[in-house]
Structure formats: structure tokens, C-alpha cells
């Protein structure tokens, strides 16, 4: 297993990742504020992709309404800050908790659904939430205009308002999330998720409480999306329902599938493709979607496992070094 096979690979890989991470630390000092901002949004997408990857990639639950949890986090921060004036720095974890809580309440009745049925219901959830936000319940969400004037985060005397501040905020949160997810992947919980993805009946017969494990994945994924939403809200200072449409959910879903289900580097590569490709194709505006669609079809035919699939797909290597 990995303990044995990775023994030789590990130092080299650690070095590569270390160098890459160092580049991430230097990046905002070399790049201008524009590119730092681009990198920040890229980071938010990585965070969202990672959160959805728990649900779609690790457990194999088709969630096509993930933007709903993103919205819940953003609106929690927006409303609690503008209405009650709670400092946004506190609202970072609070938004995660609220989104996670809603994740529990909303998915509990539908958690037994499988595959395409779950997919349709999650699309419904996304739409219901978006329409609710537009309808401005109790005058809280501001209707189509959204919530305006969200304050920036304040850490002691430091106000997180410059692009570089946000860059490092996103980098720190993403790093923490990656560490948490890596550890989960190699734990009893992460394996149980994978067993469910592979064969739900067999997982159940092996004594895994499939229902609670699925709920756990949804709650965790929703909570992380909520944290991403909170960062987004303080970055933009204004949020509106149109940022959390079904299209947003499709983008997130595509990030996970494109990168390779259940793969953390895959999510990063997938986010890069989904962010960078549209930028590069800006000149061909009217053909953009055509090109994009074609690229997806080609991908699914020739590389269905994703751009950077999780390690098990490439076990061929490990086998030789092991014996």
C-alpha cells in the first residue's frame, strides 16, 4: 500500500510540491494587483471545487446545486454583517457552520436518492434558494439587488482589503482545507466514502452506516462552500442572487469531473482550466461555448478519468517498486 510504495517517491514529490508552494508565496509580490486578484478568485474556485469534490468525488453523490451552499455562506456573512454589524472575521467560521447546518437540513430528506434522481433534486434546491433570495424574504436578502455594503475583515489593526491580503487569506484557508482533506482521505472516514462510491450495497454489508456517512460528506462540503462564500462576500462587498445560479453549480461540477473525481490536484487543475480557458477564449466570444462544449466531449471520450486522476488510477507504478 502507499506506506510502502511511496517510500522512495515521497522525498522527490515533497520537493516539487514545496517549490510550487514557495512560488505561490512569492507570486503576489511579483505579480501586479490585477493578477493577484485573478489568483484570489482562482483560489476561491479551488476551495469550492474541493468542497464539492468531497460530495461528488469521494462519495459519488451527484450534487448539481452546490452554488446553493456557496450562496448560503455569502448571504450569512452579508446579512449578519449589514443588519447586525457582526464583524466579518467572526462570520467566516459562522458562515461555514450555517451552510453546514443548512446542508444537513436540506439533504437529510433526499440523502437516500441515487445518481440522476439526486442530481435533479439538487438542481431544484439551487433554484429554490436563488428564487427565494430574489423574493427578498423579511427584507433580509435585498431581492435582485442583493446585499450591499458588506464590511471588510479586520484582524487587529490589519484590515483585509488589498488584493494581496485576500490572496493570503485564500491561500491560508485553502492550505488548511487541503491538509484536512488529505488526512481524511487516508482515514477510516475517507475510505468509507470511497467504499460507498464504489458499491453502496457492499459498503452497507461491510457495516458502514451509509446514510450518516453521506450526510457527513454533504455537511462538510456545504460548510466549506459556505466559508468560500463568506470570503467572496467580504471581497466583493456586494452580493446578489445572480452570482449563485445553476450555471455556477455546473462550473463547479465540471471542475471536479474535469480534474478527476476524488483528486485534490485534479480540482486545482480543473479550476485552472475552467478559469483560464474562458479568459483565453475571450476574443472568440461568440464561439466560446461551442469550443468549450467540444473540449468537454473530447475529454470525456479520451480521458474519462479526468486530467489529474486520483492516485489509484496510476497504481501501475506503485506495484513495481513494491515487491
Amino acid at each position, binding site marked *: 500500500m502507499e506506506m510502502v510504495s511511496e517510500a522512495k517517491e515521497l522525498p522527490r514529490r515533497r520537493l516539487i510540491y514545496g517549490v510550487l508552494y514557495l512560488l505561490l508565496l512569492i507570486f503576489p509580490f511579483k505579480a501586479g494587483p490585477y493578477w493577484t486578484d485573478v489568483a484570489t478568485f482562482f483560489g476561491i474556485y479551488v476551495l469550492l471545487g474541493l468542497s464539492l469534490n468531497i460530495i461528488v468525488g469521494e462519495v459519488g453523490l451527484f450534487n448539481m446545486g452546490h452554488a446553493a451552499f456557496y450562496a448560503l455562506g455569502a448571504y450569512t456573512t452579508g446579512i449578519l454583517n449589514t443588519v447586525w454589524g457582526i464583524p466579518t472575521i467572526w462570520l467566516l467560521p459562522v458562515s461555514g457552520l450555517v451552510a453546514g447546518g443548512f446542508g444537513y437540513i436540506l439533504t437529510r430528506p433526499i440523502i437516500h436518492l441515487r445518481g440522476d434522481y439526486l442530481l435533479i433534486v439538487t438542481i431544484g434546491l439551487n433554484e429554490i434558494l436563488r428564487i427565494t433570495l430574489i423574493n427578498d424574504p423579511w427584507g433580509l436578502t435585498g431581492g435582485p439587488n442583493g446585499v450591499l455594503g458588506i464590511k471588510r475583515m479586520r484582524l487587529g489593526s490589519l484590515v483585509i482589503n488589498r488584493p494581496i491580503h485576500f490572496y493570503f487569506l485564500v491561500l491560508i484557508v485553502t492550505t488548511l482545507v487541503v491538509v484536512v482533506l488529505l*488526512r481524511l482521505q487516508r482515514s477510516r472516514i475517507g*475510505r468509507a466514502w*470511497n467504499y460507498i462510491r*464504489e458499491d453502496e450495497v457492499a459498503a452497507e*454489508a*461491510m*457495516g*458502514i*452506516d451509509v446514510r450518516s456517512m453521506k450526510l*457527513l460528506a454533504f455537511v462538510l462540503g456545504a460548510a466549506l462552500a459556505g466559508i468560500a462564500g463568506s470570503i467572496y462576500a467580504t471581497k466583493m462587498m456586494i452580493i446578489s442572487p445572480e452570482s449563485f445560479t445553476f450555471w455556477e453549480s455546473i462550473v463547479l461540477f465540471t471542475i471536479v469531473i474535469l480534474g478527476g473525481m476524488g483528486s485534490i490536484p485534479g480540482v486545482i487543475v480543473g479550476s485552472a482550466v475552467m478559469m483560464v480557458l474562458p479568459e483565453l477564449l475571450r476574443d472568440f466570444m461568440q464561439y466560446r461555448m461551442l469550443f468549450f462544449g467540444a473540449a468537454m466531449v473530447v475529454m470525456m471520450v479520451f480521458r474519462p478519468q479526468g486530467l489529474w486522476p486520483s492516485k489509484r488510477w496510476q497504481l501501475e507504478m506503485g506495484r513495481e517498486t513494491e515487491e
Partner: protein
Amino acid sequence: MEQPLLQVIGVRKAFGGLLAVNDVDFWVPEGQIASLIGPNGAGKTTVFNLITGIESPDAGKIMFAGRDITGCPPHVITRAGIARTFQTLRLFPNLTCLENVMAGQHVRTKAGLFSSVLRTSRQQEEERRIYEAARRCLDKVGLWHLRAELAKNLSYGDQRLLEIARALATEPSLLILDEPASGLNNVETARLMDLIRQIRDEGITILLIEHDMDVVMGISEWITVLDNGRKIGQGTPEDIQENEEVIVAYLGKEEEDFSWNSCN
């Protein structure tokens, strides 16, 4: 008579208008190899699914080790000590053999979200235990050298053995095997029978569904026969071979009833 480990009492299960299992009573003596046999459609797999909690019975009771497990969800029944394999293989195809077998340890361990994220020493210790248990079980079926291989790449016979290893990793007191010899050649079948005996010798009670009469008569110490959802006989292999009703069910009284036999 040995102490019964598993007792099925008056169990009934209908699917729509079809009565798949009708008032079936039988028991499995502790520490023995028991078999459940019967023609196709006799309700054997349904009985298995009722015992393991995949379906719940319409009536009747299932007692395991003195405890009522009727209608419990599968994970509770597995924790109570019943492990199973599937007639149609149900491995985790894209995971390694080692990971497949580690699945069995899930019910015997308890690290949660936070201890897994924090990597507490208890969680690390537990991970080592899971690894060791999986190694023992893979060793027992002779697949340790294939531990890093994906389950789907294994030969059919090895996949059957892997399922047994995975079931053993749940540390069961009753191991239920659903047609473990189907699709195996003679050499593999002989090896399987040895393995089943060896597992029994380690104190694990075995309940077998099997079509291959050589296997059933060769290793069973206790046989229950079902036909059309009813129990028609129970006893030692010798008793069963002389049981009038069983012979009729298997060989048919008249010529036209004979045909099912050629299907197997």
C-alpha cells in the same frame, strides 16, 4: 444438538403477490458448516438478504447469538457479528485489494472526523490495527502479494477469495457465503473447501448457499433445504440424502419437473 447461533423463526417475505419465503424455520448450529440448498427460485438468497438486513421480513423473527436482529439495518447486523459475501461479486472495483479488505474493519474501529483530521495517537494506533487485520485476512486467503492491485484486475477466482477476506475482516462469528464456488474450476473449488474448513476450525460458524452438490455434501455438517419458499428438510447430509421430499424437489416426481436440473 449444538447450541444454535442463528435461529430463523417463522419468517415470511412477499414481493408483491409472490410469496418468496413462507414461514421458514431453521437454525444454524454454532461452530459448524451449515448449508442452505434448494432449487432455483426456492428463496435462498431472499433468506440471506433477510438475515443480513438488506430486506426486512413481513413476519417472523431472526435471532442471532440470543439477540433479536429482525429488521435491523445491515451495518448493525454486521457489527453484531454476521458477515457475508455476494453471489454476484460486489467488490470495490477501483480500490486496491488491501483497501477492499480494510473495509471490513470499519465496524471494529471508531475514529471520527476530528480524530482523523487531528491524527490523534489513538487514531494512528487504530490505523495500524486496521492494516494488520487486513494483512492477516489477505494472508489467510493467499492474496497478500496482490495487495496493491486494483480489485477489478484480479482473476475471477481471486475476486471470490478477496470477498471472503473482506468478510473475515469484520471479525464475524457467522460467515454467510452466497454461492462461493460458482464460476470456480475444480482446483479452485478444492482450495475453497479447504479454506472454508480452516475458517470453521478457527471458530467461525459458516452458512453456505451452494448449487454444487459435491461441495455441499462434501463439507456441510448441517443442511437446510428450501423449495418454493418453504423449508422441506433439515438435518445432516446423510439425513438429507434420504429425505423423500428433498429427492422429489431435486429430481422431480415426473419427467417435466426434471428440467430445472439441466439449467445449473
